[in-house]
């Protein structure tokens, strides 16, 4: 649990949690610290994406991806064919730059890959980097922190660092929620629970096995749990189709009371009939998502069921899902209510639909109404204003690289799951129980980076719950 400048990253990623959690990166590189990588250019539409690495294995990473040629001349751009070091598959023709430390942004050895901006290329390069030994995805603000630690930033420059970390932590949390929503999230939580329980039982066997009468077969039980977990992780990692659909872009949810015209708005914005519209309240019963291009930004637009006490079980479930989907959205477009349904600090655009029904001669609206936009889905009046407002909102959301590009999130995900699986492998081959427990601790550290948690106290709680130990 619980660790300062050097360990901020781990904590930032997991949000506030217990201190002194062991965070062992299974593939720790020799020398001074792990090598990190990240997509450094912003989200949104771009021709070129920049991926950066920093740390002692940067040179190795550069060589691994550009075939075993010499490192390019320091600080000058060269064109290289990037290939996946494992499969040998070509990834992209890209400009690469090599900045040997200490004359680099972070003060460490750094490499930059300027690749074509398509999601497939970026994701391919990130995954390839994740497979280079000693490399791991960067945590929130980690490049900046390294730069600071090596005296590359002045104190004034670092003033913004805390805010940045805060923002990135928040964004990552939301990103993680998004990623962990649904099937994959449940899987991940389940894995973490199993692993913590197995670890607790092994720890109990170590700390109390000799003196107390632990039930027979505590260790065997942990063994079989770990075996099952390893199989599950392996299957998951092998079968790419089971990975959750990548949700690219900002998440925009349309929500509000029934029959306000949410579905009409979604159809208007996506220029195709995504949702069925009818004059009847409660037509939409599930969350309907559609990827759209909103004012030049990629976005995932969600239509939701109207927020009311549902009439039947299906609609009630729809309303529940609607509320839930607001937990991890970036922007809420709401045609009628002034507050985000969850009261969270999301960006909120209040849109009043059916302006065509207002009496001519100006609307007679309550002066207490917060800033809002008037729209008529029927006539299209006010659409330009809404698009302009959305553009501003999305620029704010997407212009901030910290929003956690889903591609990187996915690379992180795979990296830690693979590392977790590797650690489970060394559990099975450990020559003694102390080493076996260490492997489980490392494995748990990797899962904790994905879903949080991971304290020692949690383990002790399970021990004292499951066993009657002590003299």
């Amino acid at each position, binding site marked *: *649990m*619980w*660790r*300062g*400048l*050097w*360990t*901020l990253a781990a*904590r*930032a990623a997991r949000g*506030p949690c217990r*201190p*002194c*959690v*062991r*965070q*062992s990166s*299974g593939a*720790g590189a*020799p020398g001074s*610290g*792990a090598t990190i990588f990240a997509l450094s250019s912003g989200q949104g539409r771009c021709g070129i994406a920049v991926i950066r690495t920093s740390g002692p294995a940067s040179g190795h990473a550069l060589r691994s991806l550009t075939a075993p040629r010499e490192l390019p001349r320091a600080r000058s751009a060269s064109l290289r064919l990037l290939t996946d070091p494992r499969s040998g598959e070509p990834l992209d023709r890209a400009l690469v730059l090599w900045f040997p430390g200490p004359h680099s942004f972070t003060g460490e050895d750094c490499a930059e890959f300027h690749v074509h901006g398509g999601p497939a290329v970026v994701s391919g390069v990130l995954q390839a980097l994740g497979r280079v030994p000693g490399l791991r995805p960067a945590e*929130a603000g980690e490049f900046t*922190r390294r730069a600071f630690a090596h005296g590359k930033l002045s*104190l004034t420059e*670092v*003033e913004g*660092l*805390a*805010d940045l*970390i*805060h923002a990135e*932590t928040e964004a990552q949390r939301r990103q993680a929620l998004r990623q962990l929503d649904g099937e994959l999230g449940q899987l991940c939580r389940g894995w973490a629970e199993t692993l913590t329980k197995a670890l607790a039982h092994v*720890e109990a*066997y*170590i*700390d*109390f*096995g*000799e*003196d*107390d*009468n632990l039930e027979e077969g505590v260790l065997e039980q942990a063994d079989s749990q770990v075996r099952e977990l390893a199989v599950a992780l392996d299957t998951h990692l092998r079968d790419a189709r089971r990975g959750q659909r990548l949700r690219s872009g900002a998440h925009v949810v349309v929500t509000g009371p029934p029959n306000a015209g949410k579905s009409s708005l979604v159809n208007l914005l996506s220029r195709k009939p995504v949702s069925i519209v009818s004059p009847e309240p409660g037509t939409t019963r599930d969350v309907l998502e559609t990827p759209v291009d909103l004012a030049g930004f990629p976005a995932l637009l969600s239509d939701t069921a109207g927020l009311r006490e549902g009439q039947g079980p299906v609609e009630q479930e729809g309303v529940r899902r609607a509320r839930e989907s607001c937990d991890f959205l970036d922007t809420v477009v709401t045609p009628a209510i002034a507050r985000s349904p969850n009261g969270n600090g999301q960006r909120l655009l209040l849109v009043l639909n059916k302006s065509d029904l207002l009496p001519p001669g100006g609307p007679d609206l309550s002066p207490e109404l917060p800033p809002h936009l008037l729209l008529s889905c029927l006539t299209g009046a006010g659409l330009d204003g809404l698009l302009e407002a959305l553009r501003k909102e999305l620029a704010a959301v997407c212009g901030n690289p910290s929003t956690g590009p889903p591609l990187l999130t996915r690379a992180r995900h795979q990296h830690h799951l693979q590392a977790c699986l590797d650690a489970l492998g060394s559990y099975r081959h450990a*020559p*003694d*129980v*102390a*080493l076996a*427990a*260490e492997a489980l*601790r490392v494995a748990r550290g990797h899962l904790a980076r994905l879903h949080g948690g991971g304290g*020692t106290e949690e*383990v*002790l709680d399970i*021990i*004292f719950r499951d066993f*009657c*130990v*002590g*003299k």
Partner: protein
Amino acid sequence: MFSLRGCGRWVAASLAKQHVPPPARLSGDSASAAPGTPRYDVVVVGGGHAGTEAAAAAARCGSRTLLLTHRVDTIGQMSCNPSFGGIGKGHLMREVDALDGLCSRICDQSGIHYKVLNRRKGPAVWGLRAQIDRKLYKQNMQKEILNTPLLTVQEGAVEDLILTEPEPEHTGKCRVSGVVLVDGSKVYADSVILTAGTFLRGMIVIGLEMHPAGRLGDQPSIGLAQTLEKLGFVVGRLKTGTPPRIAKDSINFSILNKQTPDNPSIPFSFINETVWIKPEDQLPCYLTHTNPRVDEIILENLHLNSHIKETTKGPRYCPSIESKVLRFPNRLHQVWLEPEGIDSDLIYPQGLSVTLPAELQEKMITCIRGLEKAKMIQPGYGVQYDYLDPRQITPSLETHLVQRLFFAGQINGTTGYEEAAAQGVIAGINASLRVRRKPPFVVSRTEGYIGVLIDDLTTHGTNEPYRMFTSRAEFRLSLRPDNADSRLTFRGNSSLSLPTRFTLLSDLSHVLSCLLLGCKEAGCVSQQRYERASWMKSSLEEGISMLKSIEFSSSKWKKLIPEASISMGKVVSIRALDVLKYEEVDLELLAKAVPGPLKKYTQCRELAERLKIEATYETVLFHQQQEIKDIQRDEALQLPKDLDYLTLRDVSLSQEVREKLHFSRPQTIGAASRIPGVTPAALVNLLRFVKTIQQRQAAMNELPKTGQCDTDRLEKRQL
């Protein structure tokens, strides 16, 4: 750490020794005290496991020390179980020993059944443990204490503290300068260590009866508890218990499972090759179990058991038989029958801690197998006592509120002899260093279980009696019982090698004082121990590099050591160190295969064993090193001790974080990061603040230091 202001002046003073006399020592010489009033460097209150270690450590460090105890004949009393060590606890004992503490050596002279627990679970979690003869332990401890140079022992109960004006260069609202005894007499001291155990408002509970006592037959300390509360210390309440004692000759051992000791016995202390008693002369332990009838008696009589009903927190891992029955009904619970001494006619039924009325205890005992005719000599009882929230002390165990006042042992909310002893050593060393105006001696959680213990207490506090487990240590594979000497005996040396550019007050003063201190642990380690540890360390290093240098192909190894299941992998050549990693290979076997370079390492059993252990963990430790370094870097970033977090304007912190920092007063960025609720963003802000001070300090150090006056002027300009 010293405050910014204080340190600046101190640096100047040490650099300009010729011109400015060093700060006057406040004490030591009886000449400076009022005539007739005794005066000591360090006064230790309490003669239990924390108190004896503290007093001996302070005296070893060269301080004139007084140990004040209610009764000299209870010094070294083991008031609960007749055993020392165990899993996690054995680790603590090895570390206490590495700092030349007493309990491990005394146990090697007083044990009657030595057994290493977890033998098959890996050397990192071996638990050295022994049944101890209570009488012998007490005798040997008293002999040691009464013969320690510079250490005086006096009987007396402390009622109050003498308080004076605080030293301006330290935090704290006042300074302790002595103690007042019950009879009104005073003892002056430069540092005071309180090791009150369960005596602060101690209450003994049997059935529905409660009466004030620190231990059965001893008076509690009430005046002292009131003094501490008045000073503003946050006080909590905990409970613990002890089982009844049974007459040995009334037990039918013949029908019970017998447990025999190890042969050979493994000593606790690094300086002992063997223990005082031969394995064949040692006594066995016996195992029996509770049964449904025991559950019945307990459940029928809960209304007669006030200790169980109380809301005071008891330990989860050392529960009374009542809480075991309540929490895990319908099970058989283990009862270990342990001898209390070589010629003692008492048996200690471990696992049977109980607070029922005495006659019901006897009834319960007699329904257990083997105890059908058992005679209860002394009933089990519960103890409830005050403890002080340990977040009120620094990692050197000095209190934040009162300068030069140290707390060690159960008073800090821990349980167990070993936990108490570990804190005692640290408090003793630091009280002595404080008197000599030396920087504190702090063990990091990357260096030892002592560090884990104290860091957990000072950053998280505790709401149940805190006990050590190996699962609490993140770096369990590095913090092993076998290498405690390499980790701690040379600590003075390694503190010099800390990257000084990371320390806040980029510390000429610190470096100077380390040099002055010498390498042997603030003087608390004897020459003999130091030499042995040095020999072992260099032999290990030499041995490991030798093992790394011997390389053969796997087929050659297979021929040399057919017993080993060496895999014929793709690796061309294998180092001897890697061969030693195989479970079935030990150094003996390896030396038979390659006698030339390796024979000499088999001469010393301990060395051969330790080389094998180093080989076992080599790969994992390599990965752990980086993490350890990261933590140590954070811990080298010190926070000024006198920060007022509640009003500090230069740092942007939330009110919640301010309050948490204010209460725990972390001394390093590392410690701050472990306080729950302190966010990464808050840490970065703190870090920036620290760096700003560091720059100022550096700027100040660069200016010519011509003497005190200049320094003072500088300080005025900067503050």
